[in-house]
């Protein structure tokens, strides 16, 4: 396996971790204003993700930072051609990030409502935008022979990518509802469970539309090898099975299944991209690949050493932080405001 492939796999893994982890905290943020109008309950909801969301977001920072180092041309194209998308994404992440810190710092209903809706918007918009970005990866964007983007903003938004945006929004919200049912008690747990049950149908529906649409719109399933179809098959079956687990109140298993769906969907996308990183819709030969965008082998070697040391450490201490805060959050527990 060449070092470019290793880094492609690592970046795909970072994005997978990001969507699984930030996926549920996006979902919690989206559900926040609808779960409750009571301040204490909203604070409890936020505290289910309070210690985690910042660390979760780090998987994105790491994915993009290592993309810059390992595949500078991918990074440069990825960031510049989706320009307006990133402006909206960054604006969302800014509001969401400060909202978690600011909302409880002032005891005024208007203030708190404003920041709660910022958490909602700052979670919902990125959830949609990530679907749009990833689907553009695989559907292809107009890239010419010299790796330059020749399209306009309008190219990024079309029925297919919008369906993908809605799908990711629904899946993340669903994932978040199940996470909430795992981390809360009493009325909040019931409400979260109800949301999860209601969300399953549209999530499933859109996920199926997305899958069928992907077959017609992209070359994702062009080769009908069993090994290639296995992963998307598992992810759709996992999603389908959630409704049974919810009916048995097995939130833990349900969460495992949505985790599998998100992880395997991300893996499918990256697996089918490989060795490309951005598909050219003009000419397959003009696609950006891990080879024509990568850094020198010396640089990739340095990065590999760094990654081998620090990624296991990150997994250990992030895992430890999840362990510290593994208990359910109740309204009687001391809430850190």
């Amino acid at each position, binding site marked *: 396996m060449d070092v470019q492939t290793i880094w492609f796999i690592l970046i795909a893994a970072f994005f997978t971790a990001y969507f699984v982890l930030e996926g549920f905290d996006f979902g919690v943020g989206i559900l926040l204003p609808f779960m409750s109008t009571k301040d204490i309950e909203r604070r409890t909801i936020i505290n289910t993700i309070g210690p985690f969301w910042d660390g979760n977001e780090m998987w994105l*920072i790491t994915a993009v*930072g290592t993309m810059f*180092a390992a595949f500078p041309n991918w990074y440069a194209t990825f960031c510049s051609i989706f320009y307006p998308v990133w*402006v909206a994404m960054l604006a969302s992440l800014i509001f969401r990030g400060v909202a978690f810190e600011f909302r409880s710092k*002032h005891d005024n209903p208007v203030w708190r409502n404003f920041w709660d809706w910022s958490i909602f918007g700052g979670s919902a918009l990125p959830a949609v935008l990530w679907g749009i970005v990833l689907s553009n990866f695989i559907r292809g964007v107009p890239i010419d022979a010299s790796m330059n983007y020749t399209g306009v903003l309008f190219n990024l938004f079309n029925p297919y990518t919008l369906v993908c945006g809605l799908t990711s929004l629904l899946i993340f919200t669903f994932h978040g509802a199940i996470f909430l049912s795992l981390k809360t008690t009493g009325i909040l747990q019931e409400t979260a469970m109800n949301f999860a049950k209601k969300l399953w149908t549209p999530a499933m529906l859109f996920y199926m539309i997305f899958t069928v649409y992907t077959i017609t719109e992209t070359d994702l399933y062009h080769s009908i090898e069993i090994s290639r179809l296995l992963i998307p098959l598992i992810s759709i079956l996992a999603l389908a099975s959630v409704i049974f687990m919810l009916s048995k109140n097995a939130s833990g298993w349900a969460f495992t299944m949505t985790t599998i769906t998100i992880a395997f969907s991300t893996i499918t996308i990256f697996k089918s991209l490989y060795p490309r990183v951005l598909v050219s819709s003009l000419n397959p030969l003009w696609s950006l690949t891990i080879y024509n965008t990568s850094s020198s082998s*010396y640089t990739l070697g340095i990065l590999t050493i760094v990654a081998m040391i620090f990624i296991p450490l990150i997994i250990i201490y992030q895992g430890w932080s999840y362990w510290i805060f593994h208990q359910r959050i109740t309204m009687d527990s001391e809430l850190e405001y």
Partner: protein
Amino acid sequence: MDTLLLARTQFAFTAIFHFFFVPLTVGLSIFTAILETVYLKTRNEKYKHLVKFWGNLFLINFAVGVVTGIVMEFQLGMNWSTYAKFVGDIFGVPLAIEALLAFFVESTFIGIWVFGWNKLPKALHAASIWIVALGSTLSAFWILAANSFMQSPVGYKMAMNGSRVEMSDFLTLIFNTYVWRQFPHVLAGGIVTGGFFVIAISAWHLMKNTKEKNDFETSIKFAAIYAFIGTILVILSGHAQMQNLLKTQPMKAAAAEALWNTENPASFSIFTIPDEKSLKDVFAIRLPGMLSFLAYNTFDGEIKGIKELQKTYQQQYGSGNYIPSITATYWSFRFMIGAGTLMLITSLFTLYRVIRKKYTFSPLLGTLMFWSFLLPYIANSSGWILAEIGRQPWIVFGLLKTENGVTPSSIVNSSELAFSLIVFLLIYGILIITDIFLMKKYAIAGIQTSE
């Protein structure tokens, strides 16, 4: 407006805005960690209240620093894609390491620290704020290692086809003299920012004679020592950095002094109104020999002037203007050292008061002491303006000009850029107003002795 100017404006606002929050994050995290260590040793509840109070202010600041940092990461690819492709092989590496080694630690342990008061043993809780402080310090190092490559490129080779630079030696890159002059200066700048922040708020409370007088006396005692050490370090490291600058970027050094002609011994400018067009003084007061002394620790020695450097660079890099904005570099340098001098006076004075146990502040003195928190902010921002404007016209010194680094307008056009600039300016406006509002509220509210 053209895309270059818009992209530069957006970068300038984002970088300066981001750096309003970074030094306080560094300085206040170390300060909070020190207080929590004292709490751990003494088990005196007073220190716990202090940790909570200063920690709370730290968190408000930290949140804004983190979110603006994300913009920094994307912005290099969004607006400077040609630059990103040119330097990614080198520049991307410290950025990636920063994420893997520093930022990740910081973001995870801040969650543990905030939510872990009742879940962790005291020692582990104190350790987690130290880890946050270490994370933000390391984070600064790696970002500065990347910036240092732009200032003084080392450890690289040109790719075969000349399309980009490639790393030739990682160790040379991270042992770049530039970063080992810049990093201590930035770190000390953070300590000073944190120290003055604590001094300012404590002095205000002592002036108002609020009920937590005793707690703020303790705070100002710690902060006086902390700020004093920081100020001395910031001056020494700044001096070392300027000496190094004369070797690596003589044009920036000459511009900062408005030194038009090569002089031996060279004079130090106290006050200059420059005429940038005809490269001469409109008005100037200069100290003879002083610049040579600062550069070489002796009163003679040649310092190259702007005009001669311009000629040398034209021979070396081809025709073009290699002179940065003299007004911006000269005055940002004056503001930085001016603020630094005032910081030295203030920190000495505070230390004197603390040693003499004089904790009463008259309305005038208290007000002056309060506003002194602005001094490090002025110095930090003008320091970066000097560093970045002084490097112009280069984005990577000697290798790539800023005008050649911007994303082609066929990809990001000026209306998209104008739109994003407005969006970001609005957001930064909202953030700074909210930040000040909350800081003020919590600073005035004082220390909660009962929970």
